[in-house]
């Protein structure tokens, strides 16, 4: 199990390197970049915030997008609440580690004790590698005068694509993804930067609620 956790952590450490690089290229300082990895610690939301800022949007539009992307972690918490302690200080710390990887590792085990161990082992190891990777990536680009020379402006969409791909296993999410991309581009010339994302979020929420109400 430790070996699985290490494998996941090393893979995400590499992914954190690209986050650190993209974040500093987007104009965040080294300290802001590292603060995101320490305090936010949920990859897609971090990429979204720096992606919006890098594209010229306000940090508040980026923050709203990050929070919307973080909503899925609340669902993970529900699944994990039967495994983890529901009270005390430990729950406050556990909450910080409620992300895709720890949830997947925890719910893959049958026995509650094993689940709990998988959750904490993955969370702690991942946290260390995630932050080391971020620092390495941020340092690497901190002194690059023009990120465009290294194609760093093309890195965020590729990162989003790599995050999106595993969620596209059925026809419906593919249709939703396509529609969301089109809607965002249609809105873009007319509203402040970052706002197309919020319009897309509202539309998909309305769609989701209407559809499941049927």
């Amino acid at each position: 199990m430790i070996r699985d956790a290490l494998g996941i952590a090393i893979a995400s450490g590499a992914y954190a390197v690209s986050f650190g690089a993209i974040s500093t290229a987007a104009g965040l300082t080294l300290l802001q970049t590292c603060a995101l990895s320490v305090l936010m610690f949920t990859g897609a939301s971090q990429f979204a915030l720096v992606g919006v800022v890098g594209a010229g949007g306000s940090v508040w539009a980026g923050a709203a997008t990050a929070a919307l992307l973080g909503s899925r972690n609340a669902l993970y918490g529900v699944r994990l609440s039967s495994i983890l302690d529901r009270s005390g200080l430990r729950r406050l710390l556990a909450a910080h580690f409620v992300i895709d990887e720890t949830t997947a590792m925890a719910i893959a085990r049958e026995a509650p004790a094993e689940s709990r161990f998988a959750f904490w082992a993955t969370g702690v190891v991942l946290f260390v590698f995630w932050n080391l990777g971020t620092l390495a990536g941020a340092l690497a680009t901190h002194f690059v005068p023009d990120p465009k020379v290294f194609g760093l402006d093309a890195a965020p969409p590729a990162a989003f694509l790599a995050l999106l791909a595993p969620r596209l296993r059925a026809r419906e999410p593919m249709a939703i993804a396509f529609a969301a991309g089109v809607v965002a581009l249609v809105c873009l010339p007319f509203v402040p930067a970052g706002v197309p994302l919020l319009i897309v979020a509202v539309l998909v929420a309305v769609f989701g609620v209407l559809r499941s109400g049927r």
Partner: protein
Amino acid sequence: MMWAGVLVACAACYALKLAGLSLPARLLEDARVQRTIPLVPVALLAALIATNTFSTGHHLVLDVRAAAIGVAVVAVLLRAPFLVVVVSAAATAALLRLL
């Protein structure tokens, strides 16, 4: 301003994680919530890909980033690891600009 936005976003993301562990399960086990929330990242990530690839400021543009995302799509279809997808896209854009 940047710091304020960063810290508020961090607090919001933590609050969402904690809410899942703390709120009564029936609130979040509602069928509408369960079926809607997983759609949000799909739509947002797709919108982020579209806007980060095909726009600069308020203008729709078609430049080397389109070729870069094309290379990234191929890398994803070949099941390349995350870093390979990102680096291949960045390298494509950098090389095309050199031409």
